[in-house]
């Protein structure tokens, strides 16, 4: 083997890709990246997505709170599983908490007390876990409202809306299974109520109860079963659906507010790397930090004060966690005696209606909203620009009506607490709620819609006559008037960057041969709904109207200038200091 015949390795390709090997030495990060890409081929996907643009608005952060609190739930939850013992085996508590020492309880309760009193940081993690759960569900709800109020659920995002609704349902069930685990008196009472709900199910109710509890209530199986549902089944589905939710978000690209240069065809904002990654990453730490502070400073679910579960005991003021409150409220305001016996079989309307019928129905209504709206409007276009709530008065009013229903039902769930705090009669509060639950949403709908329409009028006033300066001028003949000045072009553009509403009309109930078209009934309904939805809305001014208004304003200015009064009135405030064109719509 002579030196001549030695292979010149410097010319051998470093990879099997088509391009020639590079002689230059890559940076460590670069070589790691190419090592990974040789095996994973991620560069093609990363090329677009690393600098993917996300629009910026404070309301887009609400869903992020939900995402990050879910991560906190996973982290704190794993910590808790290291000590928690999901067993209903009977033990005598011998831990550090004086008042319960020597008391018989389940191992689940005893290990919860152990985590709370004998593991350093254990109570902190328990409280963080519980706070994070409350924040998870609350932020999902507020995020849902944001999406609905801005019309972000319209095509092509309807399916992501449905996924979101399922996430809310699963989050709620996850919360219920979680707070039932300590097997304390309060949660045990909740589980017993849940047993009552199961038993109210027609035909199979008592079997469902016996199968879930492994026999007659309370049995010895419910805690381990809830545990595996809580730590494996539901979190697994939640994770998968959250992944789908995020993937669809990336695929559709985020919606944005209309404004100068922000159209249906583009998305304007900051790139994922570095700004959005930094903001989102930083926000994770903030959410985590705030939950840690809450866990350290604010007591939540002090199970040691309730004591272990005993099926013969109950505490006054028994309340489920807040997100279970609204079905509980409906349960409380059902009038006395709604139960019927048909052919010898008992049907408990008093439990079925508020628990087994209305909440699932509400969820279905919620999921159907974008499809219903799409059907009524007949709008098949993709929508990436958000609508201000006022510009969809009927949708906004429907959401507020649903919120009012929810809020009243929720308040009814605390009727005993309200009665104590306000020194009111619980019966009268309940009677009031029975009426309010029907009247409230209707009132809320009507007020909201009128309110939205007034705001639309106000927008048009601003467009046509300018904004109110607060400057009062006196004319030579003694007349006082407030001076209006035109708003900036960008603000005016933002106000007009919306579609005109078109009322759908069903034309031709019968075809040429006089035969009723098979769709005519649904089309007529659709036309009526479309009319109901849009007929009172205020449309944006036309170009001609704007032209005329500007002409009018110019004429006025001319008149006043003839009076040798060149000031526009703003020499006395700070409006000249700002460049009005740069003030975005949302600051007005």
């Amino acid at each position: 083997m002579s030196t001549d015949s030695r292979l010149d390795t410097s010319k051998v390709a470093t990879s099997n890709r088509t391009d020639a090997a590079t002689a230059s030495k890559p940076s460590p990060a670069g070589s790691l990246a190419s090592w990974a890409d040789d095996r994973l081929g991620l560069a093609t996907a990363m090329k677009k997505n690393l600098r993917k643009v996300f629009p910026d608005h404070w309301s887009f952060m609400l869903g992020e709170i939900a995402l990050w609190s879910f991560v906190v739930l996973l982290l704190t939850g794993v910590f808790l599983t290291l000590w928690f013992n999901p067993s209903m085996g009977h033990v005598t508590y011998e831990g550090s908490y004086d008042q319960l020492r020597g008391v018989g309880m389940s191992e689940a309760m005893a290990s919860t007390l152990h985590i709370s009193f004998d593991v350093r940081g254990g109570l902190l993690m328990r409280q963080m876990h519980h706070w994070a759960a409350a924040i998870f569900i609350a932020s999902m709800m507020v995020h849902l409202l944001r999406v609905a109020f801005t019309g972000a659920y319209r095509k092509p995002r309807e399916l992501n809306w449905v996924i979101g609704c399922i996430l809310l349902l699963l989050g709620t069930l996850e919360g219920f299974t979680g707070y039932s685990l300590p097997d304390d008196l309060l949660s045990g009472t909740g589980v017993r109520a849940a047993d009552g709900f199961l038993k109210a199910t027609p035909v199979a109710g008592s079997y469902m109860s016996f199968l879930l509890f492994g026999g007659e209530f309370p049995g010895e199986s419910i805690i381990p079963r809830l545990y595996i549902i809580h730590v494996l089944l539901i979190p697994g589905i939640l994770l998968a659906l959250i992944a789908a939710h995020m993937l669809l978000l990336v695929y559709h690209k985020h919606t944005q507010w209309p404004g100068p240069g922000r159209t249906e065809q583009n998305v304007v904002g900051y790139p994922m790397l570095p700004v959005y990654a930094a903001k989102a990453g930083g926000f994770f730490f903030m959410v985590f930090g705030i939950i840690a502070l809450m866990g350290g400073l604010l007591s939540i679910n002090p199970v040691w004060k309730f004591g272990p579960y005993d099926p013969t005991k109950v505490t006054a003021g028994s309340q489920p966690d807040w997100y279970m409150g609204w079905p509980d409220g409906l349960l409380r305001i059902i009038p006395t005696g709604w139960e019927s016996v048909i052919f010898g079989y008992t049907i408990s309307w008093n439990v079925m209606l508020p628990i087994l019928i209305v909440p699932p129905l509400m969820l279905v209504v919620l999921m159907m909203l974008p499809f219903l709206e799409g059907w009524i409007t007949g709008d098949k276009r993709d929508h990436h620009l958000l609508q201000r709530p006022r510009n969809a008065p009927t949708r906004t009013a429907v959401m507020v009506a649903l919120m009012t229903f929810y809020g009243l039902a929720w308040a009814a769930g605390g009727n005993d607490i309200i009665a104590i705090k306000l020194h009111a009669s619980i019966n009268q509060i309940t009677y009031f709620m029975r009426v309010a639950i029907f009247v409230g949403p209707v009132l809320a709908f009507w007020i909201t819609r009128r309110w939205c329409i007034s705001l639309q009028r106000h927008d048009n006033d601003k467009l046509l006559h300018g904004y109110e300066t607060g400057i009062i001028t006196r004319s030579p003949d003694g007349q006082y008037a407030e001076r209006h000045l035109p708003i900036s072009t960008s603000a005016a553009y933002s106000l007009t960057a919306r579609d005109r509403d078109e009322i759908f009309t069903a034309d031709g109930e019968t075809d040429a041969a006089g035969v009723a078209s098979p769709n005519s009934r649904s089309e007529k309904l659709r036309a009526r709904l479309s009319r109901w939805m849009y007929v009172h809305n205020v449309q944006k001014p036309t170009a001609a109207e704007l032209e005329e208004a500007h002409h009018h304003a110019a004429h006025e200015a001319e008149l006043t200038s003839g009076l040798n009064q060149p000031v526009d009135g703003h020499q006395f405030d700070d409006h000249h200091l700002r460049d009005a064109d740069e003030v975005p719509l949302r600051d007005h």
Partner: protein
Amino acid sequence: MSNDDHTPVTTHDSQVPVHHEADPIADPGLPPHTWRPTDVDPKAEKRAERQIAAMFIAAMISAVLFVVAYFSFEVGDNWDTFAGMGASTVSLGVTLGLSLLLIGVGIIHLARKLMADAEMVEMRHPAASPQEDRDATIQALNDGLDEAGIGRRPLVRNTMLGAVGVLGLPVVVLLRDLAPGDALDTSKLAHTIWEPQMRLVRDVTGTPILASEIEVGDLVNAAPEAMFPTEENGYPELEGAEEQAEKAKGAIIIVRMDPDEIIPTKGREKWTVDGIICYSKICTHVGCPISLYERTTHHVLCPCHQSTFDLADSAKVIFGPAARPLPQLPLAVDEEGYLVAQSDFDEPIGASYWEREKQ
């Protein structure tokens, strides 16, 4: 800003917004980028850098303090040092929270002050695939199904679907033993452990109750004597699930009122002892133990959903969502003067269920 996402979009006919008129005001386009103080003033930039670094350093200090707190403060008995919270929990929470919060605020400050803040524009694509892709997919699907030949062979298709469908049976049947054997016997709901001559005992101590020791206006929470087995009373020891189930069903309340106040019910005239009357403690709504007694009105209230029962009138529901009165336990006294049951309840206690009238 130079990737292929910024090329004009090709859209399907139905996807383009329909403009029936020109926008009344033309789009003035993106406003020009304005510079921040940190972009133009090196002093402001340095200041921001120092602020951010200070936050990160404070976060480190806070994390170290967490470790110090972990080893300095005891848990256990000292769980309510500060305002009902233990020193350990409070200090761990505050140091961990501050550390995380400072990192988060620092990173966001960095993003807002020092990272480039020029807005970028990216073009959108329609969510739908191009029509040729759709056609190709349909074609591929049809080709695949065609080659499988499932459509042409209904016998194979139907038996395959049938086989997979019938597989649902094992899945369902496997769940049968969630409540194994006679644990699934729902007729247990109709009975409690009460039997003739069983004594009523106090629910905490298990001591039998003399009829004479209950005053008018009293409410006593009680249990069946069988829940407190001794050699003396001879009841068998109950364990685990069975004990819990019987405890959950057998709980009762005993009240004494002026016999004249009791509104007699047909068939129940002999169920009381000198104004002592006994009902199931389990609410007929969804099964919470009722607890709040108002002696002047003889009303008892369930704290869960506020069903209210009039104990003087066969525990009739006078308010709230419950539909049925509380089941009444027929009472008697034994030769020693202790309260005993005449029999079990004559109906299932607790929440309603489908077949309760049939049992």
